[in-house]
């Protein structure tokens, strides 16, 4: 077809398979999560005050090295890429691990990495130093971070205006301290964070680091649809902050975080979808009605066959997005839109089918199906709904909206 989009013709293909390293990482994660993250334990935690499993996260972050996957070796990380990050996310999604992986190892880390690379204030470099220092502490798992954006934020959004600079206090300027005021509702993965990265409107806009213990910072837990990734409402009332990026580099850093967030979340949803299919297939072989296994009824089989086909498609989209991001491919924006929309749709369908095809037991609190359903539905809204990502294709693929 003659248009800008396909001018690329058949480009040399990116590797869409799983590398040996990725498979080894996934295997190690599965072993650990099978022990530490059994469905009954995940369910029990949802009724405790600590919705996040901080001990599990510390083990994953430090022992397996998940926190530092994206961080270069010279800053103490693993020097891996978004491919490994996505492969690990699939396993965490399959086990519904209640850990702030997406928010910290994904969104916040990618934001800090870009801030460290691009902070370019004349005579500056101080911001880059703060970001690099944060990355070192993220890499060894001593610190967990979150970007303070509302869950529905997505790549290419306009810079958030929910938080503004407020009047300085005596001594602030000398200490390099800024003050922030504002409120951001429904922030994912911020509850267990030690550090928040807060985008604030100003002239110019900036990205600020706020310690979780800072006076004037409040986090109120939200009773969340996704009980395994609890949201919180964040408010800042003159909270002290340090600037890590300004202007265009702040916008670039935030966007990098949201792009990575969408891709990692898509991979997590892929892992969740596959797990829901596996659980449902297993139940279809076990449960008997009318003196037959219910999985032998064609109405059931065809739905599961369709779901399987949907997941094979979503897997290709997820792998492509991770590969694009890992190699800084010019097609990344398209890849992200495809992956987030395909994987979100697959996950929601899979979780809904899982509930339905388990019958009454699938509707109980005791069975884990509802945890998957809640995670799937909530994640499909987080970092851009499938519809919002497809709408982005209008510009990216030259399919303009009606005038």
């Amino acid at each position, binding site marked *: *077809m*003659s*248009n800008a*989009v*396909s001018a690329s*013709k*058949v480009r040399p*293909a990116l*590797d*869409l*398979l799983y*590398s040996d*390293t990725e498979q080894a990482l996934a295997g190690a994660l599965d072993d650990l999560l099978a022990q530490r993250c059994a469905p009954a334990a995940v369910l029990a935690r949802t009724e405790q005050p600590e919705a996040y499993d901080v001990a599990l996260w510390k083990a994953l972050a430090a022992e397996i090295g998940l926190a530092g996957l994206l961080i270069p070796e010279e800053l103490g990380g*693993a*020097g*891996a*890429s978004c*491919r*490994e990050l996505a492969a690990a996310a699939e396993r965490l999604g399959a086990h519904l691990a209640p850990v702030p992986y997406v928010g910290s190892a994904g969104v916040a880390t990618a934001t800090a990495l870009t801030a460290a690379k691009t902070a370019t204030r004349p005579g500056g470099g101080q911001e880059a130093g703060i970001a690099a220092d944060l990355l070192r502490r993220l890499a060894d798992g001593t610190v967990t971070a979150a970007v303070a954006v509302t869950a529905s934020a997505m790549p290419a959004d306009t810079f958030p205006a929910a938080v503004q600079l407020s009047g300085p206090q005596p001594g602030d300027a000398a200490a390099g301290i800024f003050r922030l005021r504002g409120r951001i509702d429904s922030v994912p993965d911020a509850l267990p964070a030690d550090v928040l990265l807060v985008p604030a409107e100003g002239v110019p806009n900036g990205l600020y680091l706020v310690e979780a213990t800072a006076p004037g910072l409040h986090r109120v837990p939200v009773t969340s649809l996704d009980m395994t990734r609890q949201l919180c409402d964040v408010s800042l009332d003159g909270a002290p902050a340090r600037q890590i990026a300004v202007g265009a580099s702040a916008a670039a850093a935030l966007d990098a975080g949201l792009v990575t967030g969408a891709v990692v979340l898509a991979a997590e949803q892929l892992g969740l979808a596959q797990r829901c*299919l596996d659980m449902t*297939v297993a139940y*279809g*072989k076990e449960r008997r009605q009318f003196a*037959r*296994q219910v*999985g*032998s*009824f*064609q109405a059931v*089989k*065809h739905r*599961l*066959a*369709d779901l*399987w*086909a949907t997941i*094979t*498609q*979503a*897997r*290709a*989209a997820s*792998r492509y997005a991770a590969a694009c991001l890992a190699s800084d491919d010019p097609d990344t924006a*398209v890849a992200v*839109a*495809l992956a987030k*929309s*395909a994987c979100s749709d697959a996950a929601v369908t899979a979780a809904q089918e899982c509930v339905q095809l388990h019958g009454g037991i699938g509707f109980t609190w005791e069975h884990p199906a509802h945890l998957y359903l809640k995670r799937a539905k909530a994640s499909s809204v987080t970092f851009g709904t499938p*519809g919002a990502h*497809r*709408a982005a*294709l*209008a510009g990216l*693929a*030259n*399919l*303009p*909206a*009606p*005038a």
Partner: protein
Amino acid sequence: MLDEENAPAKVLAQETELRERVLAFLADHPPAQTPRDDFLAARFDAGLGYVHYPVGHGGLGLPRNAQPALEEELAKAGAPDIDVRLNVIGLGMAAPTIIACASEEQKSRWLRPLWTGAEVWCQLFSEPGAGSDLASLATRAVRDGDDWVVTGQKVWTSLAHHAKRGLLLARTDPDVPKHAGLTYFALDMHAPGVEVRPLRQLTGEAEFNEVFLSQVRVPDADRIGAVGDGWKVANATLMNERVAIGSSRAVAREEGAAGFAAAAWRQHPERRTQDLHQRLLKLWAQAEVSRLAAERLRQQLAAGQPGPEGSASKLIFALLNQELSGWEVDFAGTDGLRYDDWTMRRDASSDYARGPVFRYLRSRGNSIEGGTSEILRNIIAERVLRLPAEPRADKDIPWKDLPR
């Protein structure tokens, strides 16, 4: 972190060697001075037909993904190439079946004219009484000396009117259960007793035919596989058919059905509506993802890890073609109410560029030909997901005693 051993280096060396081989071949057979048929035949004999074919039979036993390098060199030299569209069944189904199941002598006889296009092949599987339930077919083959005598009726046979040979599945033993009594042959379509009658389809023309077989003599030398092994051989054909229909070569973004829709959208701003925009974006994304899934499948095959994902390709391909062409008709407004020509013609293959209405109509067949989408879902459920089979009444009864 990603150490890929030395695999890429090996592939590169292989590719360099292949390119050198092509250049040497081109020096011996300058395309400008060599007649097309002679060039193609010589190319096949040099192992430069399809490089994944076996050595001595048009190939070099290389992985499929070595082929593009070969074609690139030939294209640069302006060399003639085969027309895949004229022999889709031959290249897509007959050749893989022959390579997998036929004898050396048969490979030598059949593959060369098949590949060059001198002999078109068709597939004589379906019958009026046996479609999805292919194994219940009734066409009989009875042994008579060195020959088999074949009598029966086949239907929906695409390309039979152009074909020199047909992949024939026939019943050689009615006294055993249906899957056990079948044998596979390569039928000479020009043999006495073969009658081909066009069968008109809903698009107006006739791609397919009815084929009547009356006392046709088929030499035993044209039997593929052992007597009674027909079902096994037929499955090799069907697997390849589904892969062929679900796209087996790398394509560019918007090269398929999505390209027609996107081009129409760009050409006609005045026809755009919100509803059509939402539907288009969704279909475009799905088409692009299915292209990536096909690419991933090819990478799996090339890495020697064939997965079952191939069965998803055909299912999704049919669905998308139907949805996209349905969208096109809607987008065309009243132009979508006009058709180019209902005249009965006997085309060799479908020309999808004919227009949106043709595409809409022709794509209805995509979920029927090569195994219906319902049958594909059964196959995925039972062979991929290993869900239990439906209770069946036809497994252990001799074919002749089955209820009809």
